[in-house]
């Protein structure tokens, strides 16, 4: 029993890690008022890039910056389209997802079915990992998990407690007033889209070089979309995103726990998507004013327009 509980917690943390990374990234982006529906595609690009670099160099730690660079590059498309060219953000994000999924399939084709010789090792945190029960479950984990939590907390502090964080948030609430304060709205939006993209790519890298050690086309399996839903569930707050992501990590693990009970595996595979709908429904009963949605999320901002 003890074994099962520990391994369940451990797997929940692992399954929640990519969700947390991507959700934090999307929160930063949406706080600046840009809706990025390209998360799924950027994640796939991050996954395939990290995998290819790790495979060819044998160094998982080189795969991570490579994935970040790739995430930066493809997110630039969305930044240019939605900020500079004032394109429809929904369609631009969708296009990015299509491109990302397609491009990752093309890049990864020669690598399908070839497992990594070395994957990212788990790291035991000294002393803490020796604690009974939780030591093994929480402190003997992939570096991506620690990174995800640290980045989420940093993002929270940055958005809520620093001057630049206020500028980002007011860019999403009222870009015109922000511009009048002498803040460069376009620059902030570019930065937030790109940082968001880097976070999504990290989430992908976790999937391909830490969670599993192989590349399969479509391995992101809708996690990017779930992250967008989690952004709402977390009320655009990175600290709450930690909690939200690990709940969903638990739902991913639940699939495997319930399998021996003879429930249809296809029904279990529906669970994360069904839960997303249920959670969004639950959150809709909250007072909309307390949802904290950025007021100008997804709206085109044209400089100098009245």
């Amino acid at each position, binding site marked *: 029993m003890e074994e099962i509980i520990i391994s369940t917690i451990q797997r929940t943390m692992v399954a929640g890690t990519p969700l947390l990374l991507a959700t934090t990234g999307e929160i930063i982006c949406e706080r600046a008022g840009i809706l990025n529906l390209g998360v799924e595609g950027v994640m796939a690009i991050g996954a395939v890039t990290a995998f290819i670099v790790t495979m060819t160099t044998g160094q998982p730690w080189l795969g991570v910056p490579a994935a970040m660079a790739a995430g930066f590059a493809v997110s630039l*498309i969305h930044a240019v389209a939605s900020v500079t060219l*004032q*394109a429809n953000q929904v369609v631009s994000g969708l*296009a990015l997802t*299509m491109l990302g999924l*397609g491009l990752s399939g093309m890049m990864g084709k020669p690598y399908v079915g070839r497992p990594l010789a070395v994957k990212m090792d788990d790291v035991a945190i000294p002393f803490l990992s020796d604690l009974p029960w939780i030591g093994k479950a929480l402190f003997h984990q992939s570096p991506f998990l620690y990174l995800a939590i640290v980045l989420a907390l940093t993002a929270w502090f940055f958005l809520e407690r620093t001057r630049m964080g206020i500028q980002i948030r007011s860019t999403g609430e009222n870009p015109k007033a922000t511009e009048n304060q002498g803040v460069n709205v376009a620059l902030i939006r570019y930065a937030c889209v790109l940082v968001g993209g880097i976070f999504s790519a990290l989430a992908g890298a976790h999937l391909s070089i830490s969670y599993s050690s192989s590349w399969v086309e479509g391995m992101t399996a809708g996690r990017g979309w779930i992250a967008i839903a989690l952004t709402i569930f977390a009320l655009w707050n990175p600290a709450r995103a930690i909690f939200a992501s690990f709940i969903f990590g638990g739902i991913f693990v639940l699939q495997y726990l319930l399998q021996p009970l003879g429930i249809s595996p296809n029904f279990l595979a529906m669970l994360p998507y069904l839960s997303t709908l249920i959670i969004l*429904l639950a959150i809709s009963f909250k007072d909309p004013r307390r949802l904290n949605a950025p007021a100008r999320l997804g709206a085109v901002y044209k400089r100098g327009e009245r």
Partner: protein
Amino acid sequence: MIRIITSDRYNITPLRSFMTNIAALGAGILAISLIFLAAGVNPLYAVCQIFIESFGSIYGIKETITKAIPLILIGAGLTLAFRAKFWNIGAEGQLLMGAVFATWTAQHLGPALPPALIVPLIFTAGFIGGALWGIIPAILKIKYAINEVITTLMLNYICAEFLTMLIVGPWKGKTRFGFPGTDPLPDSAILGVLPGSRIHYVTLILAIICSVGLCVLIYKTRFGYEARVVGENPDAGKYAGIDFLKTSLILMAVSGGLAGLAGVGEVAGIHHYLGYPASVSSGYGFTAIIVAWLAKLNPLFAIASGLFFAGIIVGGDAIQISLGLPAATVEIVNGILLIFLIMGDYFLYNKIQICRSRA
């Protein structure tokens, strides 16, 4: 010094709109060439080959028309939804639900009824299936303010798993030797094709009628006007007393229903049995988003843009085999073309002048 001055453009003529789209597609094809080059393929050859394979032979044209049928149906339906700024990304799921409903109807009523009765019945069933799956996000959006992009997408995944559950479980056919999939549909429910092709003409005619009908609906009726107001100026719509729930329900029933019809066509016209979701539809629900966008959200133009993207699918599949490119090639081409199309809109709505300033 050279300065760039941008200003709004007010006189947007259909010709300029058309030329902008052509220029955007041209620029997109140029970008795709670079990717082909990176993949080690002669880009000029590859791009030409896409169009030669799809439009350059009788066989190619027949295949292109076959693939255009679902794209026109779904794309036309999406133009209506997108005009009301209802971002229906769930056409793929709505298509599958239509296929499921049609399969059930055909299997249960098909053996007893003549084709003249069963064919209209399966199309009706497919429309209802797609429409039901489509109005769920409408209710969730209007009643509970839940973002429709996420709900329609989640419903895609749920529907795909639901369909798989049926074909590996209760609906698994006895003639499939243990492989997932239903038994073939009864003969009476199988759609006729034009001789020597796979063009199931009933669905093709239906697609064209629907495009024309939607055009009338959008531009000539009160409902169409209300849908456009909901999209362009929701505040004004509220004050004018437009019933948002009713409008959204109708437009998603139509949009989902048309996707359902496409599902009927694929099952009864092409495959003749219900198989895995990925075999029922090769991503038509997503490609149709680009079809709608290229059509400038005009359902009549969806016929032309549906044919164009069907050509990309046929040609893309062909060069993928002949040049050894991965299956994702078509997806890349689609993604890049969509990006260039939306970027092109900027140059349509804004006038950009390059002047030499005196300073």
